[in-house]
């Protein structure tokens, strides 16, 4: 069956521009997670959704970052006024049910480069 998909796979943008990253979870998965992976660093947790709700946004690096999920399916991560330090791979994962207690299946990531 289809796994988690993310688009675009690569994004190059100029400092100060806004970018939108998209995640399509596995069908039927109610939980969705966003992570960031910078070179030489571990995965950094950003935010999770249970259905369309994101109860805790404290993991987002700054107020330039926002995320939403609609219809319990597709999610978008938006970065406003991008900075060079935002360059990283942004990974999305989904799981079947109970948050963090079920196996998370990851997408291939979006590689963001801010020039």
């Amino acid at each position, binding site marked *: 069956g289809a796994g*988690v998909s993310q688009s675009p796979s690569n994004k190059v943008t100029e400092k100060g521009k806004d970018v939108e990253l998209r995640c399509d979870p596995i069908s039927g998965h109610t939980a969705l*997670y966003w*992570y960031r992976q910078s070179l*030489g*660093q*571990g*995965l*950094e*947790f950003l935010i*999770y959704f249970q259905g369309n709700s994101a109860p*805790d946004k404290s*993991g987002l690096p700054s107020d330039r970052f926002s995320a939403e999920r609609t219809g319990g399916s597709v999610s978008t991560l938006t970065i406003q006024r991008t900075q060079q330090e935002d360059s990283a791979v942004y*990974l999305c*994962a989904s799981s079947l049910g109970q*948050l*963090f*207690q079920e*196996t*998370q*299946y*990851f*997408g*291939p*990531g979006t590689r963001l480069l801010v020039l």
Partner: protein
Amino acid sequence: EDQVTQSPEALRLQEGESSSLNCSYTVSGLRGLFWYRQDPGKGPEFLFTLYSAGEEKEKERLKATLTKKESFLHITAPKPEDSATYLCAVQEPERLVFGKGTKLTVNP
């Protein structure tokens, strides 16, 4: 602050040379420890979940074990296709905390 530390950072093995990767953690009340494999340019791929000290799980040439303070990923007679970065993560109530990974290279 809860932490997950993986060692070594990088490991080179000859094909057939068994070894172990370490994941040590400091967390109050472990809810779950996860092992993932990540190939270059791809997202992490789930391997194992361990929940309690003494638990062991196996898959092909890999075996994961768990104590109260650390987990080991044992690789028996590795093959070149086992080359990847292996990630360990610890479950907290509101997030998974990942280590930085061990990059394994298996030479033929």
